């Protein structure tokens, strides 16, 4: 029997931490560094690395400002990021459908 061709997953989006960041940003206008850090339960360095990778891929933009003397970092998803996230969902759907039909065939 011919094995179905499953789509490749984008490694930038597929990583759990980066997927979580994009999930937050797609449902918000912007999110701060500390909010993301707590939501992901990540360390500063770890989160910075993931944000830098997403920014380098053009999926998010990072705005750094100062509120008084405090640094403030806010992240916003780009159109490219939105498309990449939705494409990832489409691919997940294909995997789910494939898993379902494989389960039915077993029965």
């Amino acid at each position, binding site marked *: 029997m011919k094995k179905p061709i499953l789509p490749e997953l984008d490694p930038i989006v597929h990583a759990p931490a980066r997927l979580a960041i994009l*999930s*937050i940003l797609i449902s*918000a206008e912007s999110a701060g*560094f*500390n909010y993301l850090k*707590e*939501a992901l339960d990540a360390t*500063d360095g770890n989160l910075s690395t993931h944000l*830098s990778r997403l920014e380098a891929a053009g999926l998010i933009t990072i705005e750094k400002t100062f509120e008084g003397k405090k640094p403030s970092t806010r992240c916003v998803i780009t159109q490219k990021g939105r498309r990449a996230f939705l494409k990832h969902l489409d691919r*997940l759907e294909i995997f789910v459908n494939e898993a379902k039909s494989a389960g039915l065939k077993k029965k």
Partner: protein
Amino acid sequence: MNPEEIRQELAVIRNMIDRTRKQTAESAPLFIYMGVASVVFVLAVSLLELKGLFRLVRPVMIGLTLINAVAGGLIVGRAIRRSGVTTYSGRVLISLWVACSAILLLITFVLPVLGAIPAGAIGILAAMIFGIGMFMTGVICEMPRISWISLVWPAAALAMAAVQSPWRIGIMIAAIAVGFIMPGIWLGGQKIKSGADCEETDPA
């Protein structure tokens, strides 16, 4: 990719979107402030009327409105800046209350001067606007109890229409406490402990 991995990915997406959607905490200080400011406004104007200082009523109303507008803007701005996340529902909520405030300004300062409504109807109409605003706030924040508590406003409007001046003040203050300050406390209580209250430690 196995089904377990898919399940985990979908769970991550659902949890994160859900968490962000529930972030309405940034609007809580606004409601508490609006409640307190409204009580001060009603008390000040009523006190002047009771003392017979009618010529001071309008300047005091205008002065308090300006102070409230500036202070309210500062509070909202600070809450938004301190909030860890800016949501679309938060923006809709602020826009709703800006629109309600604009209508309230017309009702308080323009329509009575033009003779379109009697001065005694200001509180009644204001209560109805507050009712609409709070009902929609409950819908936007997905907190049905806020929508239910908003019924206190039309009830207060009817009660104020049925009684005379000194009682109206008491009804208005009670409605503000129940219909404004209480939902503000609820919204604040819903706040998910976020980075909003933490020192920024971003090393990047």
